[in-house]
Each structure stands twice: as C-alpha cells, then as structure tokens.
C-alpha cells in the first residue's frame, strides 16, 4: 500500500466536493479497492469514504413500487431486507463472497467496479434497474459498458439503485472454484411484459443480455424453452485456467435453464 489521505464526509454533497480534488477516489466497502491498494496496483492520493453517508444506505419501497437500494448499502443488508420484496435479488446478495465481504461490500461499489464476474451487474441488468447518481439517472442498459467500464463520470457517486420487481426471478450461480465469484451466472427476471436474462462471468465484454433466451422465454417461460436453444457462441467468452470459452458458453445455457426452473 502507498500512503494516502482519507476523508470521511457525511453527506453526498461533501463527498462530491472531496472527489473533485486531483487523485481522489471513492471508497465503498473496500473489498475490491483495498486489496488493489495492498498489492500496490493503485495509488490514489485521497480516499473519500462513503461509509459515513447515511442518506445512501438502506432498502426501501419507492412510491412507484420499485425497490430502492442506497448505493452504500451492504450486501448483507440487501440479503436481509430485500428478501420480502424481491427474493431473487436478496438471494443474489446472499451468495456474494463470504460474511466478511457481505458485511462491508456495497452495491454501489460492485456496480461502479463492474467486474466481468460480479453478481450485481447481472441482477441489475436483468431487472432493468435504474442507477441513480449524485448527478443523474442511468438505465442499466446504458450503464454497463464492458469489463470494468461504466457510464459513470469521474467522481460520480452511485447514490441509489431502483429495481422494478419482477413476477418471478432467480439467480443461478456456478462458482469459480478459487474466488467463488461466478464462473458463469445468470439472472432471469420475468415481468408481465417480457423476460430479461442477464449473464455475468462469461463474456469478455462483461455482463450481457442473452437476447435469444429472452425471446424464447417471453413466449414460453419454461426450461424446455431454454433446452430448445443452442448455447450462445463461444466466441468472445472468457477462457482462463478455470474454464474454456466453450465451457462458459455451455454454462450460460445450463444456468439459464436452472434459473427458469427455480424462478419464484
């Protein structure tokens, strides 16, 4: 780790101001950023800790029946408090990492980081959620722009994420054996007007929607409908020591089938 300064604002306004200084970076739960700092792979001059900002924490039902989760809300809180409203999403949160990770890591940090194998991007994209920042609202379909890349501007803070609640949903996660991040995971959300299927862990371009599955499931929400599809092309899928592109492409189909089977 290199030396850095730290600020601990208690309002979004102060945090935004603090982030304006040269070399400043937001710190959420730190479960991505701190390991990066420890191995000296990043050298921010100043960290602006978001953990003291109460206005970006918590889970509540919005007036428009969307589930609103503060950008600084931990995975553990979502797992516990979203369960009654949006069980599929709560389950996703409950499957992230281990208790230490869930008690510190935040939804805002996860989305801002947009790791190609992270869980939240799948839930967010499949839900057609809206990412709210200190400056604007961004639709999930516009937010994720490839591995570790998002629509966020420098110093922009995710303050809230608004999730439309599907009739049925499920998150099927195949574990990468070492990190226990998804090797490939699929979030399926069935809405009255159609089905959305988002895949994480598989593609070199990060989270994506599997259009063929969405079309098939929108007319017939059954595992048989998935079985009838061929797996997406292996081209562009991640290949590493844990799985070939072909295997990941295959898993997309298997996990989609399982998500549909278990959707509730």
């Amino acid at each position, binding site marked *: 780790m290199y*030396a850095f300064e730290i600020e601990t604002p208690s309002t979004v306004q102060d945090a935004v101001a603090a982030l304006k200084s040269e070399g400043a970076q937001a710190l959420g739960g730190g479960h991505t950023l701190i390991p990066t700092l420890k*191995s*000296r792979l990043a050298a921010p001059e100043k960290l602006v800790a978001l953990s003291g900002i109460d206005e970006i924490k918590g889970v509540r039902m919005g007036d428009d029946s969307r589930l609103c989760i503060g950008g600084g809300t931990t995975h553990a809180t979502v797992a516990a408090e979203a369960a009654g409203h949006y069980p599929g999403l709560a389950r996703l949160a409950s499957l992230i990492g281990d208790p230490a990770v869930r008690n510190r890591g935040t939804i805002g940090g996860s989305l801002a980081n947009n790791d190609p194998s992270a869980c939240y991007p799948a839930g967010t994209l499949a839900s057609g959620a809206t990412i709210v920042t200190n400056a604007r609202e961004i639709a999930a379909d516009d937010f994720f722009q490839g591995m570790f890349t998002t629509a966020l501007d420098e110093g922009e803070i995710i303050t809230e994420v608004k999730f439309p609640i599907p009739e049925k949903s499920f998150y099927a996660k*195949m574990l990468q*054996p*070492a*990190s226990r*991040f998804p*090797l490939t995971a699929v979030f399926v959300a069935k809405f009255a007007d159609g089905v959305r299927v988002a895949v994480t862990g598989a593609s070199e371009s990060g989270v994506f929607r599997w259009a063929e599955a969405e079309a098939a499931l929108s007319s017939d929400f059954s595992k048989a409908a998935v079985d009838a599809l061929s797996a997406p092309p292996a081209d562009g899928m991640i290949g*590493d*020591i*844990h*799985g*070939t592109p*072909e*295997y990941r492409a*295959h*898993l997309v189909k*298997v996990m989609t089938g399982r998500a549909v089977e278990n959707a509730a």
Partner: protein
Amino acid sequence: MPDGGIGAPTKRREDLRFLTGKGRYTDDINLRGQSYCVFVRSQVAHGRIVSIDTSKAAAMPGVIQVFTGDDFAEVGSIPCGWQIHDRKGEPMLEPAHPVLARGKVRYVGDAYAAVVAETEAQARDAAEAVEAEIEELPAVIDMVKAVSDKSNLVHDEIGSNLCYDWGFVEENREATAKAIDEAYHVTTLELVNNRLIPNAMEPRVAVGDYDETNDHSTLHTTSQNPHVIRLLMGAFVLGIPEHKLRVVAPDVGGGFGSKIFHYAEEAFVTFAAKQIKRPVKWTSTRSEAFMTDAHGRDHVTKIELALDNEGHFLALRTNTYANMGAYLSTFSTSVPTYLHGTLMAGNYKTPHIYVNVKAVFTNTVPVDAYRGAGRPEATFQLERVIDKAAREMGIDPIEIRRRNFIQPDEFPYQTPVAVSYDTGNYQATMDKLIEIADLDGFEERRAASAARGKLRGLGVNCYIEACGIAPSNLVGQLGARAGLYESATVRVNATGGLVVMTGSHSHGQGHETAFPQVIASMIGIDPSMVEIVHGDTANTPMGMGTYGSRSLAVGGSAMVKATEKIIAKAKKIAAHILEASDQDIELKDGMFTVKGTDKSKAWGDITLAAYVPHNYPLESLEPGLEETAFYDPSNFTYPAGAYACEVEVDPETGQVEIASFAAADDFGNIINPLIVSGQVHGGIGQGIGQALLEQAVYDDNGQLLSGSYMDYAMPRASDVPSYVVDHSCQTPCTHNPLGVKGCGEAGAIGSPPAVVNAVIDALHRGGHTHVSHINMPLSPSRVWAAMQKS
C-alpha cells in the same frame, strides 16, 4: 495406570494457545533495533541481468543498505541435501544456487536485490526504486521440451536442463521390458501429477540477529527443522560454526514440507544482520509465498502395467519427468527418486519393476517435498493404472487388488525396488474399508443420486508409504548428505516433573500432547508432569526435524530410549534406598517396588534423591537424572491402508461433489487416536484439494497464473465430507520400540486416486465409457470437456 497415557484420545494441549491467539510465531518476534528487509524480485521468468542500479534506492528515506548478488560473492551456494547418481552412475548436475541472483534471474520471484530499511514501508518504497536492466530470455517451462533443448538453458554453465536421468533399479530394466513385451495384457496410462502450492497458514518469516560482543548469530525462522537449517546455512552458505549460530523455530503455523528447506531469505537476514550489526526481519507477503515457497509434485508420467489373463501383475514400468524448478531445493532431488521409485510396488507382488525419472530444470520456483513427497506421486499412478487395468480386463477393482496383495504371511517382503516391508495386512484394511464405507449399500445410494439427476461413482484404492525416515547408513548409500536419526534429552527435575528436549519439531502435529503420553505410560505418571521443548538449537540436542511422518517413529523412539536410561538409573537409586538389588526393582504406576515385597518408594522420592543425594550410591552413580539418546532406525516404517470415495457428478456442469470418504489405515500402534484422526482428516482434505481444486499454473512465459487465492483454489470446509476413518487394523512396526509407523502423510497420499477413480467410475456408469482418465484437478470444466469427447 494413570489416565491419558498411550492410547488415550487426549485433546491437544497446545491448541489452547493456538486457538486463543497466544501462539508465538516468528513474526511475533521483534528485536530491539530491528530493521526490515524487502526483496526485489524478478518479474520475468528468465533473463540476463545487464545492470542493477541501487543508487536511487540507497538514497531513499530510512534505507540502511541495499544488497545485490555481488555482496554475496564470498558466500556459499544454497546446498542441495541429496546427491542422485544417474543411470550411468554419474552424479546429477548441480548448479549454483546463490542467495541473491547473479548473472541471471531464473524464475518469477527470484530475488536479485534486497533493501534493508528502518521500516517495512520504507524498504518497500526503496525496493521499487531499484533499477535493473534485465534482458528477457525465452522461458524454459515445458519439461519434455526442456530436456532436449540445448539452446535455451536455465543454467548455461551446466550445459543441460536435465539434472539427472535416473533408473531404478537399473538392473531390472531388461527383465521388466521383456515381461511387458510378453505379457497377456498391458495397460498404459499417461498422466500429470499436478503442481501444488503449499499454502501454510503462516507465511515464511526470518529474523536475523548478530551479537558483536561474542560474534554470535541467531536466526529465528519458520522451520520444521532448525538443526538442519543451522547445519546447511552455517556449514555450506555462511561459514559460521555451529557454536556461533543459533536457529530458533518457535511456533510454526503449518509447513506441509515447505518449511523443511533452507531458503535464501534465511541466509540473507543472517548475513545482513552481521553486516549492518542490527537485527533484520523479513516477513513474506502472501503473494511472495505463492511465488517463492517451494512448490510440490509436478510430475508428467507414463506408466505401463503388464498382467496375465487372470489379472496378476507381471511387471510395471514408469517413466516420469519431474520438475525441479530453477534451482535444487534441499530435498528436491530425493523426492522423485528414493521417495517415489521405492514405493512403486505398492501393496502388491509385482515381480519386475523399473522406474525411470528425468529431473528437469525449468524457469519456475523450485519444487520439493510437499505432504507425502514422492509417495503420492507413486500411489497415484499405480492406483490409477490398476483401476484402468481392472476396467479393461473386466475384473472388479477390489478383486484385482486382492489378487495381487502381498499376503500377511509373506512379511518381511522384499520388493523389487530396494525396500523391504517389515509387516502389514492389506486384506484386513480392505475388509475394514468395505465395512466402514458400507460398500454393500453403494447401489442404493447410486440409484438415489440418479433420481436427483446426478452420476454417482465409487473409487477404491490402496496405498503404502515409507515413513519414519530413515536408516542413516542406507540413505547415505543412496546419496543423502545427512544422517536421519533423531535425538532426545529427557531431564527429570527434582520434584519429579520431566522435560523432553527433542530434535523433532511440532508445527501442527501435536507432539506436545502425544510425546508426554508415551512417557506417562512408561513411568506411570500423569502426562501433565511432562513437557516438551523443541525448536531451538540452543536447548535441544542435534536432531533432523519433522517431515516424512518421522517424529513419533524416530523422535519418539529416541525419547523412549532416553527414558529407558532414566528408568534404569532411577531403579538403581531406588535399589540403594530400598536396600535391594536393582534387578528386583519394578516400576509401576509411578512406584518403585521391591519385587515380592511391599517395600516401595514413589517416583518423586527417587527423583528428589537424585538431586539431593544424601542417601545415595555416590561412589557408583552420578547424581542427577538426565539422559540423552539418539535413535537411528533400522528400516523405514510402512503405513498402509485402503480408501474409498464416493462422488456425485453433475452431468450438465461437470461439477464433482465428494459424497463420502472412508479411510481404513494401518498405522501400527496408536498413541493418541484423536490426533491420528485429525492428521488423517487433514491429509484427506489436502488430497481432495489436489484431486479437485488445486493447481499451480505457469504460462508459456513463466508467469504464475495462479498467484493468489482468486485463482488458486484451496479446499474449504464445504468441499469436504464428514470423513469415516478407522485405524483399528494394526500391525505394529517390528523395529521401533513403540511399534508405531507414522500417520501424518497417509491421507494426502491415499486420497487423490480414490477421488479420481470415483469420478471415472461415475462417468462410466453414466455412459461416458470413452473417458479413461482426466488430469487433476478435476475441475468442472475438465470433467465436462471429457464428457463431450467421444
């Protein structure tokens, strides 16, 4: 008989301090005036050092001194402890292993400079300021290619990447070939024994100290064998005589072999402390541990088993490429040879066996002993090829093994690979296994799995290992550069308590609990009256340390011998006081009694008399009660057993789950069954890790792809089942006083083939009959890929 003696399942007394955070590990040692060291490590696998500029680093705040290889020009090479002679009788190629790389860097992590500074952060900052020009060379990674490639050498000065080409037993070569050529059936299997990273919970640490007033050096280090480190580092590297060098290995948080070896960092801190006349501390980061701890296994093997038409084994031939990494680590050369070739007979009567091993230098971190060391590699290939042979010949895998077992009345059994097994009963452990694993119920469990869409498979195998390492005269003939005896000093205090100073080292084995149980039984006192001192060359007799499941069999035997001397002397004292002949004195339940009388004295009366010799035969007996014994075993010990694993394979994803695991082991006599079970559990956990999860991967450029827990998969609690273990089959070792064989490595040796056999069985039962082998780890991706081919 007091409670808690031999055979008692006593809880480990040392766990109280380990579990309450009161352990004292090397990193807990902080000396006055201590400085901190950070190594500058190569980021390329192979490169020529053109220049190293330390001037910027030296000028950084807090920097005391920056060292490079040139500072070690007068210092010796890190030695290899075992010289192998090749098939032609020529000695192995043995390149220099400098403390800091000179001329070339040879693996990612090879240190070519080191910064010593006031704080660790300052040292780390300055280490980044060391400027080196390193001309990158192509990396030597593929062992098979490396052997014939003379144009790209890891060590230019030795002219080859082949360390040795070893034949064992060379005289068996022809006869084995003939038997294979003429056999009714030959089963061939090519396999990889995957490279593993040890991952001890405590990373390595070394603190060097130097006392100018008496020219005395001290090294505190995470070691399994402080005396060995003192000998190797003192005599071969730094030229410090033993009386001027103390090595302390306090509580050590796991080793699994990786802390046997003498590492360059130990020599560095000891040397640097003397140079700067201040203590120097190095604490490995976890990333450094991945890169620089000696790795394990890494064999590429082709094995052939010849059988007659009834499945009797006729001959066995195995050809292995064994990765040495970039330098020869302390015991690296012995692992694929004498710890591997000697075990190829397994539990079976195979008349002809020939083993060929080519040890190869590559641009990877050195490879050396890791829990089991050579024996897992032997067991895996043998038990896999037997399983394949059984399938090819349509013989039940248990039956084919039984047909070839060495029978209980055939011991001692001389194998064709040098070793002679003293005792065993392989039918008994197999019978026990069938019972405890409930193999009769398998079909029902398989059907239940199938109903849930899972393919269930059963894998069974045997293992034998050579432990209690080792007769010094024998290993001397085989090239060991050390003896492998063990020592103990037993000191009885005036009030009757005992302290055992042992050359064995405990880093998770539970010696502090088990050793006192032995003495408690011998004297008839409570084990709480005995304490163990270990880990410090200043207060323990010269010992060879702990590895190869040798502590109880060899170290414990030394302790028994010393305690026998104590008892003999104590009887003389008792005889004097009780006015009887010492021949007539009996010691039982802590009481010395004159045979056939009610005249007796308590243990404490006699120990007091030894130190307050008022009524004492001073003319014929020295006062005091302290004895030392060295014990050199006359043979290896041969623990053996039979293991069964059931797995469930998800046919859609290839995910393997261990459904059950049972182990029937014969460890001879058992001192503490609770500790033994724990050792077996841990060993099986590591074996399951190897079979399903763990894998050190270097890419073609020699970059370590599995350099953190994000990519190196360690087994977790959820990956392992509740084990069923049994050690009631006991054929006591015939040549050590305790009749014990050793249990520390069995689990890691015996379990990988059981897991793989089970997965192959599951796939066959699921109709994937084309799959004859999958290389470890059997990750979902690999299992799925195997199922796709047809």
